[in-house]
């Protein structure tokens, strides 16, 4: 497998390919055991890193946040500068402050490496689950974000992997309803339907 092949499979796993490219790669992966194995390895690594990062962010949220903040600052500082003689608009734009999820995940890999030593020491001593207070229910018709959903990231923040399922959209039709999240060791979003129709329809795109 060539480096170009590997690059393409990485992009596939990272969700960076177009629909047409995805179909092509899926056909390739289906008939090529080596490609299939490579994709499986990439996903395996993703899953392993996710576990590592989550454990350490849970165990030491301040440390994790400081590492991520440091990475963000480093990336912003490393944004390419104009090349001598080249017009400014020919220069690659600076790294955006808010990284798309795959890129954020790559940055978190570095954080995971930093956390690996601590993991090796503390292996088998996972922190006890923390019982967080329940988040208030969202009244039907109320505006704003779903409880449990992260607010829109401010400049400089990195997206973190989602720890729970998320409600992307709800159409309650001609009834009322509510959306809330049960917090705990595992956060669970809940859509609560009201069987009694309210006076008028409500549709909420979230």
């Amino acid at each position: 497998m060539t480096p170009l092949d590997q690059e393409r499979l990485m992009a596939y796993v990272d969700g960076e390919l177009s629909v047409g490219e995805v179909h092509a790669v899926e056909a390739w992966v289906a008939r090529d055991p080596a490609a299939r194995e490579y994709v499986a390895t990439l996903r395996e690594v993703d899953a392993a890193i996710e576990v590592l990062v989550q454990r350490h962010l849970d165990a030491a949220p301040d440390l994790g946040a400081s590492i991520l903040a440091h990475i963000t600052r480093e990336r912003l500082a490393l944004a390419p500068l104009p090349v001598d003689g080249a017009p400014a608009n020919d220069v690659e734009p600076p790294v955006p402050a808010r990284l798309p999820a795959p890129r954020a995940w790559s940055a978190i890999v570095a954080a995971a490496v930093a956390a690996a030593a601590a993991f090796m020491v503390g292996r088998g001593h996972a922190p006890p689950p923390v019982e967080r207070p329940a988040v208030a229910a969202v009244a039907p018709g109320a505006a704003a974000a779903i409880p449990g959903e992260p607010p829109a990231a401010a400049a400089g923040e990195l997206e973190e992997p989602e720890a729970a399922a998320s409600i992307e959209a709800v159409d309650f039709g001609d009834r009322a309803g509510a959306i809330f999240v049960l917090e705990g060791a595992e956060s669970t979003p809940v859509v609560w339907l009201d069987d009694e129709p309210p006076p008028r329809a409500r549709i909420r795109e979230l």
Partner: protein
Amino acid sequence: MTRRSVVLGLALALAAASVPAHAAGRGRRADTDAGREYFVEVLVLHATNSGKGIDERIGDLPELRKPPFSSYDSYELLQAERLPLVVGEPRELRLPNDRVLRTSLVAVLPRETLRIAASINQPKGKTFLPLLEVKAKVGQRFIVAGQKYRAGILVLVFRVTR
């Protein structure tokens, strides 16, 4: 060397050093990835205050011990179904109240995350819950509750599996 290569190198080193157990399952994972089959498990529970407690068949569902679910002292498992999730192939499940739950896979996102759509329709075709769209990883749960049913409510517990 590309940035991805660096990231992959770091990731592989980390995985090799810290998570050797994953290597043992590599072959099996590769086989299942090729099939890419996903399912949604649907537990249909009847919540009441009949004093019967929680049906053992439900298993461990911590959510039932938290408000507002803890306001019901009894949960009975009425149905347990495992519906395949295939893009373009919605599946239906008739609920005890004769409404029909319809689930479909909208998209498979990176890192085993699925975008799933669900709706609940009345027997005569009128929509009760026109649309619910959820993004969930394999193993994650979400709940749809509140439909009145026989002195209680129905609680639908969804869990994505593969």
